[in-house]
């Protein structure tokens, strides 16, 4: 089959590799029809994530058609499914509590050591995201092997286009969980740092959960425009002072809940940690801790902090005093995608959530290296690239 493979910094290629096979009873093989490039894929592209090996197949946002099933899979050939980026078994203690991203068994045994070393306990496996999270082949390919196919993939009802449901795989549930973690009460004002895909879905989710006002913060004008479309007020931090503006816009109180969706592109959760800590933390670290620091300082007394943004290492200059003295609550974590998929699929069907607005480019899988470059070089205009293995090569089609 053809697959987008990683070979080093800014070097991804479409190679011909072996077709995946059923290896375990609960496996299924999916023929990919749509797969997106995630912001976090850019961290692989930039060479920030350790334990990548040349030839690794990328991609953790994908969907397609079931073409083969293991004896214990509950899927049937021909079904269209969206696959969660988290690999969860469905039968361990954490899965029983719907904490799918904390699954004990999705990550192969030998790969769990590093998680134990870094965080005390290993996390679940992920598709196409280095060998720290399992080393699973991703979905930017013609086919993919999906373990625990009886638990993860959700069957797409007739009449829905790929583009409408593809983001159930990651960024929509991640934005939803971000809003849920903010414990929004009716009438609340919610501030969202970062208008990437997760931030924009968090904006929509916050309104659905009863927020009266959402204030979106970014510096990309196009992304702020998108937030505005969903009813958010905006702050461009290059033009206005964020904390001061938030205080004025909330009558001197501060937002009831704050959502840091800035570092979110690094689903990898270990960027700061494993690689050269000093060098990277001064560059990546400052920028990213800046948003959570600002969010905590701006948040009203007794308010809630939600952090879908990904942090990997040990940070300093964390405003622990403000956090304690104001009596804030923090909720965070990788997304338990499986938990949210059914309800969010319904929300899409009922038209409560718009997903397709995000897609700026659709292109052939063969053109994926070009897609990576475009996404990397222009984050204002390029909001989401969706790869279609069925498209003819070099048939880049702008959405508008």
């Amino acid at each position, binding site marked *: 089959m053809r697959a987008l493979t990683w070979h080093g910094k800014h070097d991804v290629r479409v190679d011909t590799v*072996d077709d*995946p096979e059923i290896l375990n009873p609960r496996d299924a093989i999916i023929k990919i029809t749509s797969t997106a490039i995630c912001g976090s894929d850019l961290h692989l592209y930039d060479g920030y994530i350790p334990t990548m090996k040349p030839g690794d197949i990328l991609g953790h946002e994908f969907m397609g058609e079931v073409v083969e099933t293991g004896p214990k899979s509950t899927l049937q050939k021909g079904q269209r499914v969206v696959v969660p980026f988290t690999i969860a078994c469905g039968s361990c203690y954490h899965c029983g509590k719907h904490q799918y991203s904390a699954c004990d068994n999705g990550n*192969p*045994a030998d790969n769990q050591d590093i998680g134990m070393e870094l965080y005390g306990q290993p996390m679940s496996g992920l598709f196409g995201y280095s060998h720290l999270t399992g080393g699973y082949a991703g979905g930017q390919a013609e086919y993919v092997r999906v373990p625990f196919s009886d638990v993860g993939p959700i069957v797409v009802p007739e009449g829905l286009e790929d583009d409408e449901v593809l983001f159930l795989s990651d960024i929509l549930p991640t934005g939803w969980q971000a809003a849920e973690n903010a414990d929004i009460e009716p009438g609340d004002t919610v501030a969202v740092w970062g208008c990437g895909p997760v931030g924009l879905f968090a904006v929509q989710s916050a309104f659905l959960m009863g927020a009266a006002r959402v204030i979106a913060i970014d510096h990309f004008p196009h992304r702020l425009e998108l937030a505005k479309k969903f009813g958010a007020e905006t702050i461009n931090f290059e033009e206005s002072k964020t904390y001061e503006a938030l205080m004025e816009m909330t009558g001197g109180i501060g937002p009831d809940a704050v959502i840091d969706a800035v570092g979110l592109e690094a689903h990898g959760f270990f960027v700061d940690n494993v690689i050269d800590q000093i060098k990277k933390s001064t560059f990546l670290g400052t920028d990213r801790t800046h948003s959570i620091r600002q969010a905590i300082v701006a948040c009203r007394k007794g308010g809630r902090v939600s952090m879908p943004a990904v942090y990997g290492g040990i940070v300093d200059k964390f405003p622990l005093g403000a956090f304690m003295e104001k009596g804030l609550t923090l909720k965070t974590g990788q997304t338990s995608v499986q938990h949210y998929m059914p309800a969010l699929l319904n929300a899409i069907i009922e038209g409560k959530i718009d997903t397709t607005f995000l897609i700026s480019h659709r292109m052939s899988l063969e053109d994926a290296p070009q897609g990576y470059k475009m996404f990397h070089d222009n984050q204002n205009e390029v909001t989401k690239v969706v790869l279609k293995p069925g498209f003819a090569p070099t048939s880049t089609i702008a959405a508008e």
Partner: protein
Amino acid sequence: MTATSDDAPPTMAKDADVRADAAASLSQGHGDHLIGRTVTINRPREDLFTYWRDFANLPSFMDNVVRIDTLSPTRTHWVVKAPAGRTVEWDATVTDEREGEYIAWASDEGADVPNSGTITFRDAGDRGTIVTATIVYDPPAGVVGKIVAKLFQREPAIQARRDLRRFKQLMETGEVATAAYTAKQLEEEKA
């Protein structure tokens, strides 16, 4: 007999004497290399005991074990991988057991890697069963010993931890998780 004053298991003691005493107290303990690892598995302890008690099952999750032949209800023959494509072998005997609760074993005289240990199964309410493996072994001497020692001393505690994780995966999900995507890769992974 030295002991700590706290409630932590002796396998985690900082004092080497405490660990040595714990090793010696194990049924027919050989040597002073002690490993203790615990995992919680979301299955009833009877199921876990039954699977483990059939020693022929163990290679399905113990990466280093090629096969275990059952010689009698209490005696087994172990074939274990060693570096450079070699194997080491020994006979072992179940020295004590209680249905659904624990199994103790020890290698027979003359084993390449003298070893003994216990595996215990304790109820953990709605979380299933707490499984603790405690293993004592003697790193062998000589040239062959060096090769074998290299194998066994290469973080044997990590090996035990990984084996227990695979046991958990098999018991909870019915399969051992792998990131391979072709049968050939899976084969290479297991080699």
